[in-house]
């Protein structure tokens, strides 16, 4: 392809660049053995090995390419934390360097790689890779990573299934024998405490309380342990969205970058499964409706490449997920007009609504009546599906938007659904559970305090807590049927005349209100089950739990209470 002089110049460059890189790798490896956590060093070793491999390929030295490729794959596993350098690995890599150096000399003298057999060395490298516990690394074709690697020459269809299966595998978990042993130990202790209790009951009643208490502790520990195992990094589902965004970008002829932040955030397996589709929906919405075309973006002085950022973080038992785009933002006036048009609100209501409330209408059933049949998810759904799924998880959605700058959907969902810390309260003789996370504080007023702190504001009762007035919502009114409502509804004057008033101040997003309950019982950790089908349509109930006495109590859905 080139003349003699060019070819010679290329070979010169081949030798000198490779030797420099090999020298650096050697120094780096020696240093890495004493500082195995030096990421920067590891990255630069990897890059140098990558360069050497690329150079060998470029100049047609296929066997050297194969050898350096195997070494590069090994380094890649180290970058992925699947392997840590030790003396054995260090020695193998150093002998790769020696072999490459020697072969370069041979090439310099004879023009070819010579007859030395690299396969024993390659075999050794692959054996170490196999021991790393990583998925069986492909011996050829891998490069940037040992898994999920695409050969650009391959058929596009071949690379699709691969990523799906790797990232979508959330129906099983791996547990180390050590953790299993720890569980076994705990179960053993549980048995021992149970025997103590049995003994106490039959022979030594004075020990009963103590035995019961340690039994409770054991169970709680076991619960905590098992819950831990259910938690999985959210990154396992986030990976699949790269594919989604790519397909959407091609379909809509937009240019999109998807940023993922907080992939290590841990979420309960069940929650993970439920939010997978929700997030996909929101991402689709962001690309479809949020982002402008590259031309429109350029004409507005924005980057032609739109950005969708998915952030996951965990705070106090809650998972916060945000899908933000830098697109055109939500046109509040258009949403308002469309909602009136669809009959969701009247124009009088629309005039009174705040922007945040108007934006929430996007998620209302019936807002997007046009079936948006998507090639990606394969069926048509409006944004109300998102709201419904989040409600079911006991979470909430906040929408914000800036015209021309983009919009963001912020979801809050409980990290785990199985056990929820709650406060038990009573109303109309039934016990209800309020999630601790939504409780601000508890206040009880007695005697004359009641009338001092309750007042009416436009016919609605309000209660004063620490110099602030909050709307007072009576739980008994919320939970009774319509026909009985008249008997339980109490005027401001009636409430003021009560001998005592117990309120639970609850908060949902930015709204705070006081829940008037008949009695405040104790806090508890409840194992929450989904609501029975008969009650499934009752939005204010988020789940059920069996109480110690065998009765059933309901977990209240605080965001829904506010709507009532």
């Amino acid at each position, binding site marked *: *392809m*080139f*003349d003699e002089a*060019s070819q010679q*110049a*290329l070979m010169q*460059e*081949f030798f000198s*660049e490779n030797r420099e890189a090999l020298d650096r790798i050697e120094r780096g490896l020696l240093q890495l053995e004493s500082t195995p956590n030096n990421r920067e060093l590891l990255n*630069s070793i990897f*890059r140098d090995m*990558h*360069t050497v491999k*690329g*150079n060998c*390929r*470029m*100049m047609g030295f296929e066997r050297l390419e194969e050898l350096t490729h195997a070494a590069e794959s090994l380094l890649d596993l180290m970058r992925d934390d699947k392997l840590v350098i030790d003396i054995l690995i260090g020695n193998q890599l150093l002998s790769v360097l020696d072999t490459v150096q020697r072969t370069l000399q041979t090439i310099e003298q004879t023009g070819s790689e010579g007859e030395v057999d690299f396969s024993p060395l390659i075999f050794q490298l692959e054996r170490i890779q196999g021991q790393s516990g990583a998925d069986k690394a492909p011996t050829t*074709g*891998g*490069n*940037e*990573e040992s898994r*999920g*690697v*695409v*050969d*650009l*020459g391959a058929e596009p269809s071949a*690379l699709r299934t*691969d*990523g799906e299966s790797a990232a979508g595998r959330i129906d099983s978990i791996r547990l180390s024998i050590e953790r299993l042993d720890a569980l076994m130990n705990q179960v053993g202790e549980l048995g021992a405490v149970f025997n103590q209790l049995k003994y106490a009951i039959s022979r030594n009643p004075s020990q009963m309380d103590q035995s019961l208490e340690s039994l409770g502790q054991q169970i709680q520990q076991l619960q905590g342990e098992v819950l831990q195992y259910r938690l999985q990094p959210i990154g396992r589902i986030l*990976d699949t969205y*790269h*594919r989604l*965004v*790519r397909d*959407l*970008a*091609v379909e809509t002829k937009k*240019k*999109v*970058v*998807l940023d993922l932040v907080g992939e290590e955030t841990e979420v309960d397996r069940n929650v993970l499964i439920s939010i997978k589709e929700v997030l996909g929906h929101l991402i689709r919405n962001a690309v479809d409706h949020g982002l402008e075309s*590259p031309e429109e973006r*350029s004409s507005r002085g924005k*980057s*032609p*490449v739109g950005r969708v950022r998915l952030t996951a973080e965990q705070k106090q038992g809650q998972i916060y997920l945000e899908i933000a785009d830098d697109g055109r933002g939500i046109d509040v006036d258009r949403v308002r007009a469309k909602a009136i048009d669809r009959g969701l609100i009247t124009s009088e209501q629309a005039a009174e609504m705040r922007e945040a409330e108007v934006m929430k209408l996007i998620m209302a059933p019936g807002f997007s009546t046009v079936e948006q049949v998507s090639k990606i998810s394969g069926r048509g759904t409006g944004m109300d599906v998102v709201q419904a799924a989040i409600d079911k998880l006991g979470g909430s959605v906040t929408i914000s938007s800036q015209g021309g700058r983009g919009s963001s959907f912020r979801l809050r969902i409980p990290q785990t659904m199985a056990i929820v810390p709650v406060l038990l309260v009573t109303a109309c003789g039934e016990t209800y559970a309020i999630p601790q996370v939504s409780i601000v504080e508890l206040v009880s007023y007695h005697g004359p305090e009641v009338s001092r702190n309750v007042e009416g504001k436009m016919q609605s009762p309000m209660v004063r807590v620490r110099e602030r007035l909050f709307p007072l919502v009576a739980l008994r009114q919320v939970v009774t049927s319509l026909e009985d409502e008249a008997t339980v509804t109490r005027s401001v004057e009636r409430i003021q005349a009560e001998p005592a008033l117990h309120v639970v101040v609850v908060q949902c997003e930015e709204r705070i209100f006081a829940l008037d309950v008949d009695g405040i019982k104790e806090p508890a950790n409840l194992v929450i089950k989904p609501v029975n089908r008969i009650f499934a349509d009752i939005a204010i109930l988020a789940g059920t739990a069996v109480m110690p006495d065998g009765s059933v109590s309901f977990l209240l859905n605080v965001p829904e209470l506010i709507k009532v």
Partner: protein
Amino acid sequence: MDKKSVLIVDDSSLARMMVRKIFATRFTEWTLIEAKDGEEALSLSDGSLHLALLDFNMPGMNGIELAEKLMVKHPSLAVYLVTANIQERMHQRAESMGIGFIKKPIAESKIADILQQVA
């Protein structure tokens, strides 16, 4: 006709030399701008660029990160990643940004195809 310019970014000097030689022998109507990493590429790029050929694995920012910055700076620039094989999510990420691919090792015929597309 004005000369068109192409930006080559690769941390391997051999790789850059290879592309330089190919352009110097076959596509003499193109002016080459070379950079060894993303930072240098950004400082050298200007509005006269038509095409950018980027390595993926480089010190500092990788090829996709660089592509994004270049596309912001020069919206009409055609950007290609030169790579043998790439992690699937990176591949999808690049495609969703409208970045093309040239399979390594780079060769005259592959460059000819690209030049035809951007011409």
